């Protein structure tokens, strides 16, 4: 311990320790806590934005391969695992959802009604409807719901006995799926609008709302509306 007898050396040692700690903190903040789902930007295109998303029963990769998730096709045409989508303000958005998950019951059947789309309707495999009954047919797999825009679209599920279910994301249209299309208008002002699914689809979490339902990037995210 002789080398620590001078105040200067002790001071330098303390500074070194402080530097290391500050480094750890900075890494913790910027390398870990600040890291989040990537934002997919659709605001650069002109005219109505065509948004193509898919919902899959199990992601098949990453730290949570068994979780259900949304994926989105970025402007370059690649499927991206992200739920933060940047959209231009005051623009029509045409959404096409490829739904690969099996359906079931809703926790609150109110979310079977379609609201907030351009004509308060959505097309399931080409057929327009205003209400999807969760207890009829295959039931509902997920919903796309943006509370602040009043938007709610239930996504009709595939049969649980489907012969060719998709096993890993991104799924190709050769697997069993439903296609749901609808359009909505983004508000004129900028803002972050959260969206989420309202079906208890976090399997094996109490009330089905943990896991993918409780983490951004799977069953919920933001619509980042920016001025065009």
């Amino acid at each position, binding site marked *: 311990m002789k080398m620590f007898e001078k105040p200067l050396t002790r001071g330098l040692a303390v500074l070194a320790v402080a530097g290391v700690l500050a480094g750890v903190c900075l890494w913790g903040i910027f390398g870990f806590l600040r890291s989040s789902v990537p934002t997919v930007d659709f605001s650069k295109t002109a005219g109505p934005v065509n948004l193509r998303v898919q919902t899959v029963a199990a992601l098949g990769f990453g730290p949570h391969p068994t979780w259900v998730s949304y994926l989105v096709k970025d402007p370059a045409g690649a499927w991206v695992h992200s739920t933060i989508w940047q959209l231009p303000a005051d623009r029509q958005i045409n959404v096409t959802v490829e739904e690969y998950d099996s359906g079931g*019951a809703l926790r609150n059947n*109110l979310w079977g009604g379609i609201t907030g789309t351009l004509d308060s309707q959505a097309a399931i495999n080409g057929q327009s409807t205003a*209400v999807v009954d969760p207890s009829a047919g295959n039931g509902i797999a997920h919903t796309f719901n943006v509370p602040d825009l009043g938007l709610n679209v239930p996504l009709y599920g595939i049969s649980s006995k489907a012969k060719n279910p998709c096993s890993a994301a991104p799924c190709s249209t050769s697997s069993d799926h439903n296609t749901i299309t609808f359009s909505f208008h983004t508000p004129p002002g900028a803002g972050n609008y959260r969206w989420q699914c*309202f079906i208890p689809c976090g399997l094996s979490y109490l009330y089905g709302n943990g896991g993918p339902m409780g983490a951004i990037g799977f069953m919920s995210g933001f619509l980042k509306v920016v001025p065009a």
Partner: protein
Amino acid sequence: MAAATERRDGIRILGVWLVLSAIFMPIVYFVWGPHLPPGGMSDQAAGQRFDNRVLGVVATPVVLLVCTFLVYALLFWRQTGEEIEDGPYITNKVKFSGWWVGLTTFTVLCLAVFGTYELENNNGAGTGSGPRPIFAASGPMLPVQVIAQQWRFTFRYPTYGGMETTSLMIPQNEEIQFNVTSLDVIHSFWAYQLGVKADANPGVNNIAFVKALHTGKFNILCAELCGLWHGAMTANGQVMSQASFDSWATQTEAQEAPVTKLLPKYSTVYSPDEAGAGGNYYGSQYPVNP
């Protein structure tokens, strides 16, 4: 200790305190009081504001007493310089301590009686009062069910065909009974301007009453941490005149009919397994699988 009392410290502190209290207590009650939250939009909110005013008036002299004393002590009894001098040897003044204990006890008991009276007299004061409230409003009232789920509030009107909406409309000057329940974890239904707060518990019907006095918009927030989107779990509400509420309700009932058809029968609580919608946390060996 006699030598040190040339200054009549006690009288001076008392004087300053009384003067300050005489100034600030009316200010708190009459100037600040009418602007205290949560405002006067409903009977209950006005009652809470009244409580805040009264408590503010009671608190003012207490704060002033301690602050006056501390400031006075630091101004007049402070010792600087090298010499260390001992103060007077006072270990207790039983009379003074007795007065203090007596006065604080009296004040506190008064406050408890006041709080109980306000709670009882204001139909439960807008708080969630359980499934069988004892401080309940009587007479005709409009039942509205508040359903909380992760992470949205919806509202159900059993007297209008059991329709369910995403924003809360209530009529003016009518007693409303909120039946608050949750479909999953604990939330708390807070209609800020109405002065209503009631926890939404799974499997529990928590009742709160309100009577709105003025028309206008109000905010609904979740006041109990409920997970990821707790901060964004808000809804809009509006107090309408009786006539416009009636026309809104009949119109919405007709418009919502196709969706209302899907809803389960109105009930005070909704068990998660009714429709089989749960996460299957409890496996298939269990009678229900929430």
